[in-house]
């Protein structure tokens, strides 16, 4: 089966996020009452897998091995 994985990689909570902070400031300048903004990276990966669990397992391994840096990142995976 072919699956599409949507991976979101984000700095851990409390980690300095200068890009997010800059975006928040700019939105405030535009007049929006924005409490916070966080930047994240989104990756879309197509892959062959036996089932959803198999696909999730593979993508989770990809995240641990390369796509995210466990020292500074959290990640989430949505499989479709």
């Amino acid at each position, binding site marked *: 089966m072919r699956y599409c994985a949507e991976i979101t990689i984000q*700095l851990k909570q409390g*980690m*300095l996020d*200068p*890009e997010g902070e800059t975006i928040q400031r700019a939105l405030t300048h535009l007049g929006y009452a924005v409490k916070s903004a966080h930047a994240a990276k989104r990756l879309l990966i197509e892959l062959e897998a036996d089932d959803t669990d198999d696909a999730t397992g593979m993508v989770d391994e990809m995240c641990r*091995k*390369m796509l995210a*840096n466990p*020292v*500074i990142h959290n990640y989430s995976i949505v499989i479709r």
Partner: protein
Amino acid sequence: MKFAVIRFGGSNCDSDVHHVLNDLLGVSADLVWYKDSIEGYDGVVIPGGFSYGDYLRAGAIAARTPIMNSVKRLADNGKPVIGICNGFQILAEAGLLPGALRTNEYPKFCCKWVNLRVENTDTAFTSGFKEGEIVRMPVAHKEGNFFADDAALQDMNSRHQIVFRYVDPDGNTADYANPNGSVENIAGIVNGSGNVLGMMPHPERASESILGSDDGRRIFESMVEYAEQG
């Protein structure tokens, strides 16, 4: 005595390091493409640059290339390995050094001279310095903001793995002297055995007095001396 300067697509400080080792120190150093072998070399330099266009994260892709397995083996055998700037990012991403390099606190490319305090002279790269000595070298990076969690920092401090800190001209770890927001003003660290060094400042750009400082040269001289002792 033979050193390898590893070239990835996007490395751009390779020739500078090659020049320092061959022309200033008079040792033999080769530029080695990442698909070639580093077997038989006595030490490795991973130079600065923008390997793989900094895609994904700075150093992330280069850290997963097969040559890094050879670098790990060489390091495990006690040979000196130094990663400068992008090379530091690669070593951290590859797990040869603890921590991670984040985007600078002020998220712009930062290119300036900095003062560094030498914290540990008992490494393969710092035997030519005095402990507490202040040296000058330039930084040039956007992702040099070193991070490690509290437990890792405590561990690194207790094992004297922090080798260089950003300081003011008087040697104080002031915030204004920290160019990128690194925790504890950390500019360079070693592994537990002291034979793998990662640092954001560029010693190869401070190896001749005509460039404004030759403090960096002593890092390469120390490395050669260490390698010669085998």
